[in-house]
């Protein structure tokens, strides 16, 4: 079948085109005519994908590439900012304002919340100086039920794994109310 535009080459693809009266027509065309009609969607044979997307040396990139790059960069910037925010949150105790740097210098928690915020540093220190890294002694009568905390921690891990952050935040709040470990400080793996 010959190309319905040039009527010379063999038709190789289908092209949908809007007519002047607004209706769509379906044409069987050769690759050359298809590229002439839709220069950014039909890639001439032999052209590399990179050259197609970014253009040849000195060419301006096609307009959709610019949009795509902007969107990608924006997304990555958003992720980076979110990462910075979460890092900042870990660096300062929200209850007493003690900074991580100060804590590293004196190893003195300023309040009970510091034990959560700097738990990673504390675990490293205690692993060297104590019998173990987890409390095994008595709990005060007013202490939260340890089993409930452990169960909530398991649920929290599962929610984070499934990326259900709404549920994870709710569990974290519940854990903090009970005086357990918050989400950003997962428990050390028991040996």
């Amino acid at each position, binding site marked *: 079948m010959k190309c319905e535009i040039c009527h010379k080459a063999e038709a190789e693809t289908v092209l949908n085109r809007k007519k002047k009266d607004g209706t769509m027509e379906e044409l069987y065309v050769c690759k050359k005519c298809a590229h002439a009609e839709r220069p950014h969607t039909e890639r001439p044979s032999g052209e590399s994908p990179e050259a197609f997307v970014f253009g040849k040396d000195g060419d301006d990139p096609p307009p959709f590439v610019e949009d795509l790059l902007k969107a990608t960069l924006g997304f990555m910037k958003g992720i980076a900012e979110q990462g910075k925010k979460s890092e900042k949150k870990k660096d300062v105790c929200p209850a007493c304002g003690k900074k991580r740097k100060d804590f590293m210098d004196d190893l003195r928690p300023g309040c009970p919340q510091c034990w959560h915020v700097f738990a990673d540093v504390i675990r490293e220190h*205690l692993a060297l100086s104590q019998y173990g890294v987890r409390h095994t*002694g008595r709990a005060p009568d007013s202490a939260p039920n340890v089993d409930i905390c452990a169960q909530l921690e398991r649920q929290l891990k599962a929610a984070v794994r499934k990326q259900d952050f709404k549920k994870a935040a709710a569990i974290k709040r519940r854990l903090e109310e009970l005086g357990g470990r918050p989400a950003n400080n997962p428990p050390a793996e028991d040996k």
Partner: protein
Amino acid sequence: MKSRAQRDDSGEYPALVARDVICGGEILAFRNPHGEKFGEHDAWCLSEEWFSIDDIRPAYANLVEKESRLAAKQPFAWNPEFGYLSPFLDHCGTGLLVRADLHLEGLHLIGDMPPVLNALYSVRFGAEGVNMDGIKNASHVFDVFTSASLGATEDEIIAHAERVFASLVRQELNARIRLVRELPRTFEDSVARALAILRECRLLSPWELLDIISPIRLAAVMGFLDGLTRQEADAIMRKQLAARDDLPDSPDGDRMRDERDADIADKANHRFARVKWNRRAKEIFS
């Protein structure tokens, strides 16, 4: 403990009883209020004294009772992973510390103190001597204490402390026997030098007195001296341990210090003028 001391006794020397090594101790629990900032120190340091190793558990029972009364009024800072929370990392977990004052003059004289201290550190115990006025480990009375409180239950910590204190007592008693059997001249020399200083000195600081009296106390405990009992030696040591060098740093302070040291020297000259080796000691050391 008495049975162990009797077993260690060689039969030819006066009985060496454990209470002469352990000068008493304390069991402490560090607690802080829930939801409040920490201070410079733990908010509460609950303590109970004990006088022999067998008394540690009854003292702990009293401590728990004391703690329950306080907990009823104020909840403690606690979390499931780190136990009781404190401004000091080493006070977390059970927040329990068991300490004892031990007079280890025998181990010092036979030169076994460094390995003993290393062994203590390796089993998560700490030991501090009395360091004052340029004198290190004055009198060789050591404050030996548990330095770990996380990862073990209260029962396990107390049992560990009982074993370590009993072992230290045993080692000190063996050191005393070895001192008399194998190094009598070393022992005799240290006691004789101390007595000579106490009889003839013109100025004596409280810390120097505390240091010098240590071999004399050991000789008194072992029943080798006339004119001084163990209780009298203990009273002198207690008085010096309780004394604080709070004189001001000024020319006037120096004069007061000299007056104080002269007074201590005069009293020592008078008190130790008639203290001497007894017949039994002379037989052993001859």
